[in-house]
């Protein structure tokens, strides 16, 4: 799990770097700071389980096992990317690892996850779906519609709310009166738990229970993971709306730092082992960057392909 989290963090830092060099078209929404959630949840999933993701989706892709180089190539708009350059940072999918795709419409992924759950049920497999979304999405109608639907049909869906306090620049407390989004689960008659989203082990445990419930036909669970994005909403956002003290406090709660500290406790991992892991990750990321940069852009006319299957 540490490796994955570290991989996400370094990957995002690299994307940020490439963006500064104008190698990344458009905008980017970095997952840095929220790694514990994707990793904590996906570590409970099998390859043939599904996830749905959001505009802040690089971390979900990596956690679910997508290839770094193809993610990076997609972010750079290259032909070798997962979506042949048609999706970009906000629209990556890898159906080979059950990553059903990121949607850049806030809240749009929830009903799709429900559909995947329905499909699992109809086809009679024991797969599950983890549906990632933010605190902002929990105010969309789809949140209500989807969770209710999954609840009444007892679908194998784990709704994972990444509450990073801000929906763009809007503080959660200004747009909802409940403190815990997890409390909303009561309305749909399903379990709802709020956990420290910066503690990968807590997330893992919560997800483990939810996945178990889902796999055994007991229906969905809503897990709210309290977290914080290290950067602004997107690349262009300096996030001046966040008080300095708040940012500093959350940086102290950096999930990777905390997990590393835990791992370094006696009887777990040696510092050298961690260094080794980190070194491997860095090499892998460099390879991904090299691959992405060296990959060709798609031909312009390819814009007309893939509209219909």
């Amino acid at each position, binding site marked *: 799990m540490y490796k994955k989290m570290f991989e996400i963090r370094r990957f995002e830092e690299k994307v940020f770097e490439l963006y500064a060099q104008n190698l990344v078209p458009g905008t980017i929404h970095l997952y840095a700071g929220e790694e514990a959630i994707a990793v904590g949840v996906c570590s409970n999933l099998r390859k043939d389980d*599904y996830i749905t993701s959001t505009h802040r989706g690089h971390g979900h892709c990596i956690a679910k096992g997508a290839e770094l180089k193809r993610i990076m190539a997609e972010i750079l708009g290259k032909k070798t990317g*997962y979506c042949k350059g048609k999706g970009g940072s906000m629209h990556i999918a890898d159906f080979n690892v059950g990553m059903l795709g990121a*949607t850049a419409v806030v809240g749009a992924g929830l*009903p799709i996850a*429900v*559909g995947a759950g329905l499909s699992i049920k109809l*086809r009679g497999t024991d797969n599950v779906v983890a549906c990632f979304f933010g605190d902002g999405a929990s105010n969309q109608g789809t949140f209500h519609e989807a969770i209710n639907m999954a609840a009444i049909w007892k679908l194998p869906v784990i709704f994972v709310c990444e509450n990073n306090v801000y929906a763009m620049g809007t503080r959660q407390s200004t747009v909802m009166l409940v403190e815990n989004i997890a409390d909303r689960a009561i309305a749909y008659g399903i379990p709802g738990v709020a956990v420290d989203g910066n503690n990968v082990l807590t997330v893992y445990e919560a997800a483990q229970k939810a996945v178990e419930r889902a796999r055994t036909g007991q229906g969905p669970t809503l897990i709210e993971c309290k977290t914080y994005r290290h950067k602004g909403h997107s690349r262009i956002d300096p996030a001046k709306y966040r008080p300095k003290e708040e940012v500093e406090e959350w940086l102290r709660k950096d999930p990777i730092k905390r997990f590393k500290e835990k791992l370094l406790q006696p009887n777990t991992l040696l510092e050298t082992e961690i260094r080794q892991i980190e070194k491997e990750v860095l090499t892998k990321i460099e390879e991904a960057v090299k691959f992405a940069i060296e990959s060709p852009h798609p031909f312009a006319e390819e814009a007309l392909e893939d509209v219909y*299957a």
Partner: protein
Amino acid sequence: MRKITYKEALREALREEMRRDPTVFLLGEDIGRYWGGAFKVTKGLVEEFGDERVRDTPISESAIIGAAVGAAITGTRPVAEIMFGDLTALAMDQIANQAAKIHYMFGGQVKVPLVIRTPFGAGVNIAAHHSQSLEAWFMHVPGLYVAVPSTPYDAKGLLKTAIRGSNPVFFCEHKLLYPMEGAVPEDEYTVPFGVADVKRKGSDVTIVATLYMVHEALSVAKGLEAEGISVEVVDPRTLAPLDKHTIISSVKKTGRLVVVSEDCKTAGVSAEIAATVAEEAIDYLDAPIKRVAEPDTPIPFSPPLEQYVIPNEKSIIKAVREIA
């Protein structure tokens, strides 16, 4: 050949496809055990296929389509029903941004074999929220196919093609067509997309019409025959893909075009077809293109008001006479 109604033809298509392919299932509001669909299209299917495959849903249009999308990209073939076409507005993100774009946006990795059935059309006095014809909205979304069957034969054949296909299909039905009877063979058949049907041959004027308007156009053609005006009626059957070839061939023959569609005139179905002909076959036009469509108003309630806005034989004849 035996005759069955449009509604029965649709039901047969659903039944046959559900028998043929266990991954086909239906979902929608009140389509199942208690009601059989607001227009009874799915009536009786729950008895054969059970509640799991003929699934009543909460009143959550967005989630209905979203769930259908999610199910479609994970190995099943959902057929979602939205009770009235107007209510597709509630599910527009899932239709236009998700269903239509997933194949493209993800670089062709996944297919979205999804059918959204919904009735359009005015004429039954249920006013502005249950009477519109919004085909043009969906024609405007790349990635969607749009079917507009006007007869029981086409309804069954097109629906089967839609269900077996690899793309999201927006399947437009029409309230006034449900009870209409027509010849439908007992034997298996499908109707391909993108192939217009010349519903009547003629040589003086081409009328391109869709859905219920096909029947109005056919009556007009019959009436004008006595006056020596020979009208060809072309039914595109699918608006996306649009069979430009058949429409243009007909215009090349007649030199005159009237487009009849029940949606609002501005930026509507008729606008697209008229523009296509103007762009690709203007040299064959011997008279201005005429459009017969609804005026740009919501559908009013009171019968005289409603009848005033719906295109009818009279307004079609007027348009034909202006150019023939």
